């Protein structure tokens, strides 16, 4: 039997980057094939070319043995290639049925389509009401729509782009069951991820990319996580240096029954959250995306003010009703999840971006006028101390890569020496080198006596970084415990909203 999909010498050049450099590998029928690599390794570009969103500059794609050109996604679907995107291509204001109809190339009367959808849903245990509006669905349910949409076309190859990044461990298990069933029926699966344990659990073969080049094709069951990680990253892994047996000082940040009101249609507000962070402590908050993390960060940073002065206190001083500027003066700095447009202004120079949050703490404003010299000096220091790859303080924030921008933002806040730092998703979409540097900087800041709150969806990150952990679900925070007292299963259940069992335990 010929290979389902075979790539040979696929090359794609972007301005300044060689995204794919002569990549060749093959996927057999019924095989679950992992495409492994760091952010920026060229995985997404590669699958976009298989799915017809982009065209390769050179190289050949063979489909069931025949050379093919895939001019667009429609042609890909016609061949039998389905794709589930990492960022769902869903329309929130439309119903499940309408969303699926949009993904179908053939015109199918909506009654017939609905019948077929129900058929697929029952066959694979993907239950959903076709008439619900997408906006009302959870992330896991939304992913089911994408999968159902892809399955309706009876694909011979299903591409899954980072499918588990938004799921709870239990949802991940359910997904794997579906994928294994599909593979058993002969459908090949191209599974893109950077999560090694998942790949070991699910995949038959793994192709590893680094910097646009193919590094290795191996059997993940015969590899260790560490060996695959080293192939993926290139150099030996650096561990976080955390001083053993360090103690914590007195309580620094006290959050007492903090709640926010619902702002948008689909926002999850913070609901009666309380926790304490001591000096020198890194407090981790885990949770699946969209469970109130954004509202919590805004409520802590001061973008959303509380009506209760003492809902948030630093060293006993109530700051709940203060805005962001005043909270910064009291030593609380924050880094929101979205870098471009929230933590930084893409069109502004780095120097101007420093004015955004550091102007008061570092005296960049004199009588209403901005001291641009001070801003430039400080920015230069951030660039140097955090090894930000930028031409200088006059580069625009938008010209930096995601990882470099994140290093700049973290540096901008950390060098202000905040007594409390709240960060959300500190290393999301950042390459391993930068992530390690950011983690180390956070650990060092805590060691210097700051209280740190890290909100993240990356459990691995939280388990290595934090001292104490709590889980947020639907805006409510679980009781906090030392991180080593949590098992992954427990965290998973909390993330999925099962409170009772754990609280009883």
């Amino acid at each position, binding site marked *: 039997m010929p290979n389902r999909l075979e790539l040979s010498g696929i090359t794609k050049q972007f301005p300044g980057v060689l995204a794919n450099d002569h990549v060749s590998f093959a996927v057999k029928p019924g095989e679950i094939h992992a495409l492994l690599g760091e952010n920026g390794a060229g995985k997404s570009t590669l699958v976009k070319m298989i799915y017809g969103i982009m065209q390769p500059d050179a190289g050949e794609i063979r489909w069931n043995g025949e050379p093919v050109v895939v001019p667009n996604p429609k042609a890909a679907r016609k061949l039998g290639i389905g794709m589930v995107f990492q960022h769902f291509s869903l329309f929130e204001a439309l119903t499940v049925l309408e969303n699926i109809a949009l993904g179908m190339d053939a015109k199918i009367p909506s009654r017939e389509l609905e019948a077929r959808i129900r058929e697929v849903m029952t066959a694979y245990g993907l239950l959903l009401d076709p008439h619900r509006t997408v906006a009302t669905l959870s992330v896991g349910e939304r992913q089911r729509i994408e999968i159902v949409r892809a399955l309706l076309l009876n694909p011979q190859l299903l591409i899954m782009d980072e499918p588990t990044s938004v799921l709870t461990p239990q949802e991940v298990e359910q997904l794997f069951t579906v994928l294994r069933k599909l593979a058993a029926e002969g459908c090949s699966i191209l599974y893109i991820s950077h999560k090694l344990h998942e790949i070991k659990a699910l995949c038959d073969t793994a192709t590893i990319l680094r910097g646009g080049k193919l590094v290795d094709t191996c059997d993940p069951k015969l590899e260790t996580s560490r060996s695959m990680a080293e192939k993926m990253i290139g150099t030996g892994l650096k561990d976080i240096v955390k001083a053993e047996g360090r103690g914590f000082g007195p309580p620094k940040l006290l959050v007492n029954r903090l709640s926010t009101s619902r702002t948008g249609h689909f926002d999850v507000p913070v609901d009666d959250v309380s926790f304490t962070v001591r000096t020198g402590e890194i407090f981790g908050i885990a949770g699946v995306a969209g469970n109130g993390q954004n509202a919590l960060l805004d409520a802590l940073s001061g973008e959303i003010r509380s009506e209760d002065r003492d809902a948030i206190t630093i060293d006993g001083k109530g700051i709940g009703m203060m805005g962001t500027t005043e909270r910064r003066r009291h030593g609380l700095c924050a880094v929101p999840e979205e870098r471009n447009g929230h933590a930084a202004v893409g069109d502004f120079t780095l120097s101007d971006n420093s004015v955004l949050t550091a102007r008061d703490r570092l005296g960049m404003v004199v009588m209403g006028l901005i001291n641009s010299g001070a801003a430039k000096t400080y920015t230069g220091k951030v660039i140097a101390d955090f090894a930000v790859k930028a031409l200088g303080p006059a580069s*625009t924030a938008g*010209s930096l890569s995601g990882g470099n921008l994140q290093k700049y933002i973290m540096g901008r806040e950390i060098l202000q020496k905040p007594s409390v730092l709240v960060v959300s998703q500190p290393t999301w979409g950042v390459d391993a080198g930068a992530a390690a540097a950011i983690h180390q900087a956070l650990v060092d800041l805590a060691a210097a006596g700051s209280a740190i709150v890290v909100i993240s969806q990356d459990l691995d990150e939280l388990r290595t970084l934090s001292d104490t952990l709590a889980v947020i679900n639907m805006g409510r925070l679980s009781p906090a415990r030392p991180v080593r007292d949590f098992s992954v299963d427990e965290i998973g259940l909390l993330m999925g909203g099962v409170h009772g069992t754990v609280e009883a335990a």
Partner: protein
Amino acid sequence: MQFRLEKRREPSKVMLYATPVAAVLLTMIVGAIIFSAIGYDGVGAVREIFLTPLTNSFKWQDLGVKAAPLIIIGVGLSIAYRANVWNIGAEGQYIMGGLAATWVALSTHGMGGWWTLPLMMLAGVLGGAAYAAIPALLRTRLNVNEILTSLMLTYASVQLIYYLVRAPWKDPMGMGFPQTKRFAAEALLPNIFPGTIVHAGVPIAIIVALVAWFIMSRSVFGYQMRVVGAAPHAARYGGFSENKTIWLALLVSGGLAGMAGMLEVAGPFQRMVPGFPTNYGFTAIIVAFLGRLNPLGVIFAGIVMAITFVGGEVAQTTIGLSSSATGVFQAMMLFFLLAGDILVRYRLKRVAPQEARA
């Protein structure tokens, strides 16, 4: 041979300032071609509209007088647009400024003094700002789009002039003309060069632009306007209130439009007439864009627009071209400028055809 657009790493400074110049030049060339094609003397029209006002020194005074209100209003709009506040009702705020100043002039008629003009100026600024406060209030309290409200209020303000000059403010000695009486001498702007028509509004316009430039580029106020316009979410994170910024943007742009209204009614018009709305408020929108929302650029853009106004009048008398041709030229300039904007962020890259197909 094919071209492809490629995103630049950094926005091009050169293109940022070259595109407005290119837009003006392209407008002249394309304008000449189009006007020839539809049966006018195209080259003549372009020459009269764009060059005669510059080469004829008698027209220079006229240029200054026409550029002054455009610059003052354009500076205000450039500040508002930076903050992403789309005040397009500057014409209405200009009218309200003019009416407020007229009210002061009429009610102090015959008992004025050195303080009359400053008082009129204050009234003009307040009148314009107050009218802009309506869209600001509606936007910040009820989230009503300021584009529509500010524009609708402009249409309403025109009717207010008609009402006032036809009834309560009508000059009884005006032989039935719907207009107010001529302002007293203390309520008229002095000419700065005796024997010319250049009034005090011209240097005021330059001063306004310079002050605005300094504030926008150096102060926290300017930073606030820019950051709220560029990234509202980041602005909130940085501690800048969006609502406060909307208020400031509308009050400043409305106040400056009102100031221009005062200068016009106390300068060239010398009284309130139904023809007071001269579209300066709308043309200033083009001025703000052509000046790249930079107060210094607005000075030059204001002069370019004034040239087309003066030139439009020249073309009307010399080659019989309708004054509305000016509007077409001005709109064309804005089209070319907006089209050229893409070159600031992208570069044109030539690609060989076979590569493009691959």
